[in-house]
Each structure stands twice: as C-alpha cells, then as structure tokens.
C-alpha cells in the first residue's frame, strides 16, 4: 500500500510582475488502487498541481507539503521522485530528437530498477506492452515523441507507465485530443495497469468523457487554485449537466 499526501500545497510562478500564486492550499490524499478525478475549468491550476508534484523547475513551492509513504517529495530532484514511485503522464509529451523509444525506455527502466533489465525478457516485456496498446513494433525505432500523432503520444505515455511500474500516477489531461478509439485504448491501458499493479491514480481532466472508461472513486472539483468540492462519481454527472459555471463565479 502506498499513500500520496498533499497538504495545504501553495505554488507560484515567477512572472514579470513578480511571484504569482497559482495553487492556494491544496489538500488531497491518494491511496493505492484509488482513482481520484480532478476536474475543473481551464486555468484553474490543475496542470500546475501535476507539474509541482513531478518537480518541474518552473514552479516555486510557497508552502505546504507533499509526501509519498511519509517521505518528503518536495525535497527530491525530478528523477528521485520517479524512483520513489511517482509518474506523470504529460498533456504535451516532449519530443527528444535522435533518441529512440527503445533506448529511452531501456535507459529509464535501468535508472528506476538500479540495473539494466535483461535483454531477452525486456524486449519481450516491451513488445507485449506495446501490443496491448495497439502500438506497431516499429514504434521502438522512432525518436521519442517526434512526429507522433496526439493519440500516439498518449499511448506512449501509458506504455511508459506500464513498464516503469509507478506507485502513484498523475495523468494530466490524458484524454485531450483523443478520438473515441484512442481514448478507449488508452483507458484500457490505464485500467490494466491499475488492476495489475494496484496503482493509485490522479486523473486530471476537463471533460467527463474519460470517466465513462476509467471509473473514479472520488471526484474533486478544482477552481481558483484549490479543491472547492468533493464527492463520489455522482459529482461528475452533475458537472456533465451543469458545467463549471457555479465554481467559476465563486
């Protein structure tokens, strides 16, 4: 069992007019096997939450804490956070020209496992995970995210999640830009990893569409840099009908 605990997290970014606070005190606890949907309008700070947990240098922690199984995450470098068991599936995965997917995956697995995975079992492992995500084997030879379609990028993120076996995953708008088929494949992947590895998931989304495929245990409405309402799956249904208008006004 793992537990990610976010307490009164306050985060800012440096702008021309000085430090601007984006997260204004976020409290959230995610346990292994739980799916927490974070829903909110654009600009509410959802992605800032995701990147702050992963340690993006653009964001400054102004207060509060993030711990994974009692260990301070905010003190860790970006790679240490991954080693501790955190994973961020990015909304806009970055292109790394000249670095093949195969090389990238193997380098990451080596870093996380502390030793290079055995060639024979590793190749099989990657192939199997790719097949499950309906990815062509030629994918391995391509440069990381370079020239990938939106759907390919998202599948590649979930492929990494499947192979790197995190304890807690943050999925930042993984549904954005996906057609129905791609959404189904990606969602099945998420559900599979969750079932196999008892993954805890923070599912950040603007729309309720993905929640038809990935069932949330908890729904948190995010507005103005903090959680403004919490509930079960029924809260998502209400958002589907009424939208975010009432939260944006408040």
């Amino acid at each position, binding site marked *: 069992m793992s537990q990610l605990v976010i307490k009164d997290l306050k985060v800012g970014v440096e702008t021309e007019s000085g430090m601007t606070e984006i997260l204004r005190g976020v409290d959230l606890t995610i346990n292994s096997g739980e799916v927490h949907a974070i829903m909110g309008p654009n600009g509410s700070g959802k992605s800032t939450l995701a990147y702050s947990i992963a340690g993006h240098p653009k964001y400054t922690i102004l207060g509060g804490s993030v711990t994974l199984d009692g260990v301070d995450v905010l003190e860790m*470098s970006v*790679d240490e956070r991954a080693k501790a068991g955190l994973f961020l599936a990015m909304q806009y995965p*970055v*292109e*790394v020209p*000249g670095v093949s997917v195969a090389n*990238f995956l193997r380098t990451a697995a080596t870093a996380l496992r502390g030793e290079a995975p055995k060639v024979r079992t590793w190749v099989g492992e990657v192939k199997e995970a790719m097949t499950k995500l309906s990815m062509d084997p030629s994918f391995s030879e391509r440069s990381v995210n370079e020239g990938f379609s939106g759907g390919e990028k998202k599948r590649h993120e979930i492929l990494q999640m499947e192979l790197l076996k995190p304890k807690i995953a943050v999925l930042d708008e993984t549904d954005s830009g996906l057609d129905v088929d791609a959404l189904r494949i990606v969602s099945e992947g998420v559900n599979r990893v969750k079932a196999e590895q008892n993954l805890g998931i923070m599912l950040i989304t603007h729309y309720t569409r993905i929640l038809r495929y990935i069932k949330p245990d908890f729904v948190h409405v995010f507005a103005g840099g903090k959680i403004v309402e919490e509930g079960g799956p029924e809260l998502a249904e209400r958002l589907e009908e009424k939208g975010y208008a009432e939260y944006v006004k408040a």
Partner: protein
Amino acid sequence: MSALPTNYLTPSGREEAWRFTPLKRLNGLHDPATVVADRISIALSGAVRPGFTIATVKAADLPAKSSTDDAIIQRVRATASEVTHLQIAQEAVVAEPIVLTRTLGSSSEFSRTVITAGAHSKATVIVENSGQATIGEEIELRLEAGSNLTFITLQEWSENTVHLGRHHAIVGRDATFNSITVTIGGSLVRLLPTVEYSDQGGSAELLGLYFATDGQHLEHRVHVDHGIPNAKSRVTYKGVLAGDQARTVWIGDVFIRGNAEGTDTYELNKNLLLTDGARADSVPNLEIETGEIVGAGHASTTGRFDDEQLFYLMSRGIPMADARRLVIRGFFTEIINKIGSEAIEERLMSRIDSQLEKVGA
C-alpha cells in the same frame, strides 16, 4: 626544408574569409615570415591491402587540380615538395575502412595529400587527427567516374593544437562522395570542406559535427561549387557548445553557376548552446545564377538547451547527467550513426562526455 618567401597576401583579419578567425592564435601559420617545415605527416595505419596503394611522390608530379584563394593553402602548396598519394584502384571494392593517421613533427608543418578513387571503385577512408600539432594541410580527393568514396576526418587533437586544412573533393561523372567531418579537439581548427564537380550526375553529402568547450575555436567553411549540370549536394552540420569562450563558426557557401541546370542542393546548420559565454556563428550563403534547378535551400538554427527535454527524461527516473548526455547524443545521432563504427562512436561520445564534465555543463 623551409617555406619559401612568397608574395601571397597575408591575411590581416579584415578579409571576409578571415574575419571570424583569431589570427594571433595561428602560431604564425598565416605569416610568410614564419618558418614552417615541409613534412609528410600522414601515414597508413596497418598494412596495405588489395585494392589500393599509398606512395610518396614529388609534388611536381602531382600538382593540385583545384584552385584555391586561401592564403594558407597556397603556402602549403608552395612549401610541400612531396605529396602522399593514396590510390584506390579502378573497380576495387575495399571492404574495411582505410585508416590514415598523423605522424607529427616537433615544429609547425605543412603537408599535402591526394586521394584518388579509381573509376567505379568503392572505399571508405578515415583520417584520424590526434596529438599536439601546428599544422596546415590539404587533402584533394579525386573521384573518378562512378566511384563511391566515404571520407571521414576525425579531429581529436590535443588541446593546444592549431589545425588549418582544406579537404577538397572533385566529384566525377555519376560519382558519390560522402564525407563526415568530426571536430572535437584542438585549440583552433579551421577547415575548408569544399566540393566541385568535374562532370554530370555527381552527388556529394557533407556531414559534420563539432563540439567546442572552453576557449576552443572551431571553424568550418563549407563551399560547394555547382558548375556542372545535374549534380546534387546535401550539407548537414551540427554543433554543440559549452563553457566560457567556446566558439564555433560555420559558413555554408553554395554556388549554383549559370550552366548548372538540374542542380539539387540543401544545406543545414544547427547549433546547441549549453551554457552562457559560448558563441556560435552560422552563415549559410546560397548564390543562384540559374532558375532551372531541381531545388535549392538552406536553414540554420541556434538554440539553447531545451530544459523541457531534460525534465521529461528526468521525470522517468533518468539522472540529470545521463539525461543531458542522451539529448546531446540524440542531437548528434543522425551524423554519428553514419560513421558506421560503434568503436569510433563510443570513443567520440566518451571524449564529449569528459569535456562536458570538465566544464561542468
């Protein structure tokens, strides 16, 4: 044994061709008053194999076929009394690369080399430049009809080396010239990778990578002269700079003459700056005298290291230093892969790694 006094113009630094080069760091190679030894500095590594010969011949018996307005190369020609001639036999296919190394003297030196690729031959020649030197040199590559020559030069010089060179290919009918120029060592390196065509149907690919750290000046002045119809050229040079006073210059001159119909050319230069205090100059020049061409283009980009790439890789557990290495390796991949030798690739990357470590980038 010493250079003859000549009337060649001494570069002052104000000429377009010399305005980027710090002349006072040339150890006098450009100055006719400086005595420079006439020495054969290139030697075959390993044994002669079937398909090629290597010999030292009198310069008078093997005059240069190309013209140059470079003052130092003119001095090299005036000084060198003998020339190394590597000859690949007609229709020979030499499977393993022919490796040439430098045997350096203790003083400044000039030398000339001619490499002839016989008609319909196929070979790879690698010139390994390492050690401590002050050297001016010219290699003229003569590609006869239908020949296929891959020419790789590795500048892995010691840190105080000054190297001025011209590597000029004369591409014959339907001949294919592939070159890879790698420059990572030396205090000051100024190379002229140049191409001309002697008949139609020739094709030239000029690839280069350079990596400059603290105080290094690495300059590549590419010149492709399309003076014959239906020839093709591709130029791709990539550079990484790190550390204070790291300096690179890339000039890409492509000249399509009025009669060179059907020319197909593209040149690209990309630079990646890892730290403050480094400077990359990139000047692509395309001069076109006929519109009857297949294509002509150029591009040049110089950018900072992408922190988002680092973040992405690190967020998958890859430590900072490894992530940086991966990105740089990736940047150089398309060039370095074409060397076709894992041993050389590893040697170059480990040299780059250790230089990176030294500047703490």
